[in-house]
């Protein structure tokens, strides 16, 4: 049980896909100007990641080794197109904001990485937990970055005005991609210096 829990909690901080493995940074820069888009992107990625990990894990003994990557890609691509179709049908406004980034989930290294590194060797339940852990790990960072950027850039959080426009001037840098670079950099520094146990043990 403890072992299973570790599969979920490990990627939240110590082995975080964004700040530790530095994967999925492209989308972390792109969709984090507002918390609402970050939340939807996180959900979409987590769902796609869970499905792909489970499917790959179920097929793991059947997939011929020579074409395993193509099969992984095929499964992931199908799931992403499904997610895109669903978003466009049910949350049209948000799908417009995410535009190209939903398609980019296909190339998000986290999905392919977990399929290749974990789901191919492990049973479905463990793979699902691994996917949840990594999805949440990605979500935490995405939402943290988006919170900073929306708060400092537009003075609001999740669309609610926090810093009134009468005395707060939005910092435009935070709304541009370089702003995300700065914040992700700071988060990586913060995590590696203060939170991550692995690094301290190495010291």
């Amino acid at each position, binding site marked *: 049980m403890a072992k299973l829990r570790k599969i979920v909690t490990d990627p939240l901080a110590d082995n975080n896909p964004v700040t530790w493995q530095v994967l999925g940074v492209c989308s972390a820069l792109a969709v984090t100007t507002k918390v609402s888009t970050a939340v939807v992107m996180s959900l979409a990625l987590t769902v796609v990641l869970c499905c792909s990990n489970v499917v790959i894990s179920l097929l793991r003994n059947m997939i011929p080794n020579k074409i395993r990557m193509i*099969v992984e890609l095929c499964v992931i691509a*199908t799931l992403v197109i499904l997610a895109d179709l*669903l978003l466009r*049908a049910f949350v049209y406004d948000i799908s417009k904001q995410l535009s190209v980034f939903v398609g980019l989930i296909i190339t998000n290294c986290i999905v392919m990485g977990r399929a290749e590194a974990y789901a191919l060797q492990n049973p479905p339940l463990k793979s699902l937990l691994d996917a949840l852990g990594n999805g949440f790990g990605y979500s935490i960072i995405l939402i943290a970055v988006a919170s900073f950027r929306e708060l400092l850039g537009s003075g609001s959080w999740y*669309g609610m005005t926090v810093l009134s426009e009468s005395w707060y001037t939005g910092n435009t840098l935070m709304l541009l*991609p370089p702003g995300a670079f700065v914040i992700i950099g700071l988060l990586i520094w913060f995590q590696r210096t203060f939170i991550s146990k692995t690094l301290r043990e190495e010291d």
Partner: protein
Amino acid sequence: MRDQAKIVIFATVVCLVCSILLALVSTALAPRQARNKANDVKTKVLQVFGAAVTDEKGKLCVSQDELDALFATRITGIVLDAEGQLVADRAVETLTPQQISDRDKATGMKAFYPVYVYVDPGTSEKQYAIHVSGKGLWSTIKGFMALKDDLSTIAGIVFYEHQETPGLGGEVEKPYFQDRFKGKQWLEDGKRCEFQITKPGGAPNPHAVDGITAATMTCLGVEDFLNADFCVYNRYFEKLRMQQ
């Protein structure tokens, strides 16, 4: 040999399952997506006329029925052909997105040019919205431009579809850029002027707006298609101005 056969069979099955699944879902959701798109166009047309259908964050604040009713009561559509002549037997609702956006390879003209006429409920002043679209840097940008009663002053512009780079060319969808068009003129002394999107910080000019930094190609594209499209509409507008 047996291994290879297994690979081929496995690959075929995976492809079949994936494609059938996608085909089913896409067919099932198509009507919903089409309705979303149609609603979006309606909203954008009302928006460009300044009707209060969205809150300050751009979210729709009227119900589906109210939207349909507003559209039906306040707006009438007319259809022009590539010569700027009125096509009496076509309704704007019957035009497909291809017919109003795809340009003929040889002539560079579109098949039909829709105009939406809006009557302000308070002042009963008329406004006209024209459909403008064309190539940006990566994609076709589509939008509406509203003109005041004089058929020269720009009342507003919105872009409702594009695939430009978010943060660069994608900024054309932002209000700060679209607001720059308000009050600009197409005509000078009754003659049509080339509209320009200039380098940011250019001299103030009634026929030009500041472009977007780092999106020069997108802006050049927008400039080109605005001029090309207005040229066609203007032939019809000239007749309207004569009548006024």
